[in-house]
């Protein structure tokens, strides 16, 4: 069964005929080649496939592509603007929050959602809001440092 959906991916309108059986992950990777969306477990247990749907972090592996109709989807490819890293990306680079890089796109997106919420988060809240991402390389330490740095900088910039 096919369905035609219209959505925005990284700010650009996309119209595409999908198979209703496809996950959003399938469509983003296999059809649109947004390969920054990673597949780690297929069942929402690792967070590698996280994308933002209308600004909200969601596991794209357990989200029907059909549901993305009318939505605005952001993948990691849409974070840098005009070839410039976003402050969140900068923070990940500067803090050394990256090792194998497989969990990185999802974490960059979840952190971006926190920064863009404009809210303040305590240390424990930052950890809680990133707790849907498994990482085996870093022990999470520098990831927390990067997220807090990005939030701190965003707060400073808005003052």
């Amino acid at each position: 069964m096919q369905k035609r959906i219209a959505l925005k991916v990284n700010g650009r309108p996309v119209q595409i005929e999908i198979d209703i059986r496809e996950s959003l992950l399938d469509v983003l990777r296999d059809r649109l080649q947004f390969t920054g969306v990673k597949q780690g477990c297929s069942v929402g247990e690792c967070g590698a496939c996280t994308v933002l749907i209308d600004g909200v972090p969601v596991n794209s592996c357990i989200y029907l592509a059909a549901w993305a109709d009318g939505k605005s989807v952001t993948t990691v490819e849409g974070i840098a603007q005009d070839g410039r890293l976003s402050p969140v990306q900068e923070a990940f680079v500067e803090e050394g929050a990256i090792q194998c890089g497989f969990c990185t796109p999802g974490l960059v997106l979840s952190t971006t959602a926190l920064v863009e919420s404009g809210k303040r988060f305590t240390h424990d809240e930052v950890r809680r809001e990133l707790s849907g991402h498994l990482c085996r390389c870093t022990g999470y330490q520098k990831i927390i440092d990067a997220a807090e740095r990005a939030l701190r900088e965003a707060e400073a910039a808005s003052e």
Partner: protein
Amino acid sequence: MDHNIVGKSVTRLDAVAKVTGKAKYTDDFFERDMLVGKVLRSPHAHAVVKSVDLSRARALPGVAAVFTALDLPKIKFATAGHPWSLDPGHRDVEDRLILTDKARFVGDAVAAVVAEDALTAEKALRLIDIEYEVLPHVLTAEDAMKEGAPLLHENRPGNVVSSFGVQFGDVEAEFGRADHVIEGDYETSVVQHCHIESMSAFAYVDADGRVVVNSSTQIPHIVRRIVAQALGLPWGRVQVIKPYIGGGFGNKQDVVVEPLAAAMSLAAGGRPVRYCMTREEVFIDTRTRHAMKLHLKTAVDADGTLRGIHVQLLSNTGAYASHGHSIAMSAGGKFRPLYDFASVKFEPKTVYTNLPVAGAMRGYGTPQIFFALESHLDDIARRLGIDPIELRRKNLIKVGHQDPLTKNVVRSFGIPQCIEKGMELIRWDEKRRAHLDQKGPRRRGLGMALFAYASGTHPVALELAGARIVMNQDGSVTLQVGATEIGQGSDTVFAQITAEVLGLPIGMVHVVTTQDTDITPFDSGAYASRQTFVTGIAVRKAAMEVRDKVLEVAARRTGLAPAEMDIRDCRIVETALGRVVCSLEDVAMDAYYDRLLAAPITSDTSANVRINAMSYGATFVEVDVDVETGKVEVAEIWNVHDSGTIINPRLAEGQVHGGVSMALGAALLEQMLFDPQTGKALNNNLLDYKLPTILDTPRINAAFVETFEAAGSFGSKSLGECPVISPAPAVRNAVLDATGVAFHKIPLYPQVVFEKFREAGLLAQRSVDHV
């Protein structure tokens, strides 16, 4: 020694690629006409495939191929990612087929399907008819060795892969002489690597009829050899490409999916076929860490002098040998250059059972043996009434120590400083006093443990590394290595070494991060924490060669002798005067375009590294024990490392953070569980296998004691695997300190902790008056 770039926290070269999603991993490459491969797995722990009917599966529209062992060459091959040995006696055990005709664990691969899409492939799997003759199975090493136990492989009586051991001195005599002989049993569980990227490969046959495999591997050159061996092809007819990889931790130091992916493509007429394992498959049919049981018997004097130790080790390797006995032998080799035992007797046995296959995993046998040894030392200290740190200090080896068996010499030994630093950082004495006489449901405790590890595999195996440098017209260089970047940061470290030698800023060193066996210099790959040490030597050698050539061309240009000049920040400088004589670009352009003398500056070298260096370190930890629920949490942890010169402090910290968190997982939470009746995995997914989340991971503190290792490039030694070794025994010793209860098995899972605490009388019996 002062360096410009070595020792600095240079930003990793691939950071931008990874943070923007531009880094392409194996599954991010698409070929036209690509098919999907899926595998049918045995539901039985031990069963012979009696008959196969593939007709229904083959008839399903969209299916390109269905095959079993009967359709493949019957070649047994070894999967371990070791360099090939010219000595047949030193080769890995050849016990594996691409698909098996006899299932040896629940999940063993018996048939494969290639289809247009995953759903069709899965449907086809359900249409394969296989009749099994079910055999009795064994899940523990003890059961497997019993008389009359079912044999997994024909040529291994008693299911013993090997019982080769080593010894020196006369341990029995020491038992007679020593004041005390103290024994203890220790045990570790099956854990899994859990790299977040799955195990994945795709393969196709190219226009020249060669088999091309693109794989998420730590060891591309070894994959090439093993794919060729498994399929009976000349090695040159296989090409292996390794793009970015999403973690390996030793699991990808084994050849797991590549021969099957190649076979799938060959079965489908050479069309591209992707075989990417599901997470559930990764848990059961890649590799795990060996569960080991250790019996330690130690001769010790009343003053704490360790005289001799007898270690009996039983290693459960599962259904196939993989790295087999090498891991037990590695365990036996690493603790000797730490404590000065007059005699050691090491008796390991590696045994087949009907469980998923154990193989290489970060630490390679050492987390297991150090859990046993470092727990044992605390138990001994308690028995003798000696402070556990004093006991260790009393028995340390000294610089210049030569291992009687490997003949490796210890040239740098930072353990005393690591102990001192760790005690200070965690405020050992102060906290130790504060923790005396605790009662009540929440208790704190302090623990520590030491470790030793090697840098590479010498003298056990070949240590060969290749490096190639080409100087570009602008004076920048492009570096190619056969060593693999798997997230640890090796490309960045090699760039730093190159930049340091050549007087270049880091931005002038380009590293080709993809390995392609058609192009890449030969190197066995990422394992044994070897790359900074071994490949670092090759890279330094290649850079020195380029430097010499640069100065020769500069000499031609300036009339100065090469020895009178140096390269500094892209300029050629007359050393004595500090005077710039020309730019590096001038030299490079001469080398490319001088009508008479042009010869681009390149080097292409190999280093055959026949030396080793021991790395050392210690964990200091404070735990918080909830006596009522059995939960143990880490309140504070320090890992202090002697890895020689630290080439990149930030990357080094990253290695420590990741290694410690992996070790804490194994110490407290992680274990693969199997149904004792059927052998089926119970928790082969990331919900039920308790990989620590960000909320389960404490702040991890890394510290370094920088010794200078004469054998390493710029004084460096290994680090990658080191952090995973000592946290588990340190945590166990801290729980002992907090509660007086000695645990002998990891993980300290709440259920088990609860049982032990109750046994020890820490919990009041509940007055249960209902049923």
